[in-house]
């Protein structure tokens, strides 16, 4: 199967058509926005974290199928998980998307998220898949941008250090 077919599987196309947890969480205590200036992807993440657990999470915004499906599946994967578990998933997803983690050989918790493994062979699309995860990381670490809503951008690097680049709002 080609990289492209491997990536554009039915599960990704389905999440693109019918994104889960789409919208915003009322009274959320964590927010972040992520931008991918290259293709105009824009993700707004809101969630409620209570006693170190992600109780509710939702996203809105615009993006390509890879970005939207990644955000949709991410919200499903981290809902009800601890902040620490979510951060582990962020790390593992980044590793898979950038090719430093082979999800079929190394131990991981990615499960269904492995459908995104093919993105590592499409360098220009790595950012699309990773954007929601960076945004999640930024939302979980508001200290990265004290006093303001956290905003990240993928401009300039395929895998920026979260929070090190502040997108323009």
């Amino acid at each position, binding site marked *: 199967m*080609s*990289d*492209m077919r491997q990536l*554009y599987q039915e599960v990704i196309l389905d999440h*693109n058509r019918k994104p889960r947890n789409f919208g915003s969480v009322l009274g959320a205590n964590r927010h972040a926005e992520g931008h991918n200036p290259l293709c*105009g992807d824009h993700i707004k993440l809101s969630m409620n974290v209570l006693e170190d657990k992600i109780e509710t999470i939702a996203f809105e915004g615009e993006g*390509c199928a890879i*970005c939207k499906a990644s955000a949709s599946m991410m919200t499903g994967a981290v809902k009800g998980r601890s902040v620490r578990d979510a951060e582990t998933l962020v790390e593992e997803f980044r590793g898979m998307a950038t090719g430093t983690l082979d999800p079929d050989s190394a131990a991981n918790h990615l499960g269904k998220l492995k459908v995104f493994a093919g993105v590592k062979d499409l360098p220009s*699309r790595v950012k699309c898949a990773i954007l929601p995860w960076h945004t999640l990381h930024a939302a979980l670490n508001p200290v990265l941008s004290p006093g303001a809503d956290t905003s990240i951008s993928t401009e300039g690097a395929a895998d920026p250090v979260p929070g090190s680049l502040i997108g323009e709002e």
Partner: protein
Amino acid sequence: MKLETMNAEATGGRSSIERTDLDKIRADFPILGLQVSGKPLVYLDNAASSQMPQPVIDRIVRYQSQEHANIHRAVHYLSELATREYEEARVKVQHFVNAKESREIIFTRGTTEAINLVMHGYGRAFIGKGDEIILSALEHHANIVPWQMLAREKGAVLRVIPMDDAGELLIDEFEALFNAKTKFLALTHVSNALGTVNPVKAMVAFAHRHGVPVLLDGAQAAPHQAVDVQDLDCDFYAFSGHKMCGPTGIGALYGKAKLLEKMQPYQGGGDMILSVTFEKTIYNVIPSKFEAGTPPIMAAIALGAAIDYLNGIGLARIQAYEATLLDYATEQVSALSGVRIIGTARKKAAVLSFEIKGVHPHDVGTILNEDGIAIRTGHHCAQPVMQFYGVPATARASFAFYNTKAEIDKLVAGIRKVQGMFS
């Protein structure tokens, strides 16, 4: 939706490129024989950068293997040879845009640097607080951001010529923008995002009636039609080598001698001086005044070779043939349901921006790439244009004289495939 396709007619039935010529032309471009994703490359990203024919590649090899030395410096054989070739390239550029004198041609890194040179050299000297600079809604970021930087520095104001849904500038509104404070007009000749060809000659004439100098961004025009800066009467004309079969890192600025002479240098350094002491520097005459440091000699000579190559085919034939390609692509793509062509100006260069309903352009680009089809997806460095149409990005196919109708058929098949996957 059937769009009016009149680009071919507009060229008045001038001789085009025939099938047999096309095979020969394509054979000149080694890269067109490439396989991508196991399929023959279909290169439809010419507005971003064009490909290089063998004669230009050969010229680069010859220069680097037999002619290279620094120019305007030494008395030895190679330096004199390289200097002569470099200055001959300037003359080729001069004739290419029909400038009056070769000293009106300044080699730059590209269109962007040419515009920045005018912003620094002319803008910073002659545009001040409260002055107004007119731009158009169609501009590439390269013809927005430098003027924004200048406006911020000087307290000047940017005024924007609006456009209609087709992507044509509103000429009445353009004329209404002029007043006593208007000091400069920076305008694209052809829109890179939409392909709109602006009526620049009439717009330059109008600006001149108000005493306003005009810079034309010719990056998307120079490769596709004959440019005559004396006929246009523009004060500055900027374009890039790599969009017209030359290498990257070289472009040119045409400027009227009397303006260039009163402008400030853009960068200081070697070659742009007549004499230097720690107290004072006397600047060199134009064009050297604007070419500080060792220029991209090889790239300039290669640009000259690219001009020879284009002239060998003929810009009029290139324009006529590309118009038939654009008309064909417009017909084929507009016949597809669920596809919107963005930019439907009456007069267009060979650019087809489109969106497929329900599919992000980046997904379109990735899936087309699987069939070896290279298009540009994104905002095309023209975010205000995207904002106007309410889209984050578009997919853009842009044609050159070496493209074929068969390649457009592949593009159309690729679009159908995308629609099938996302249905």
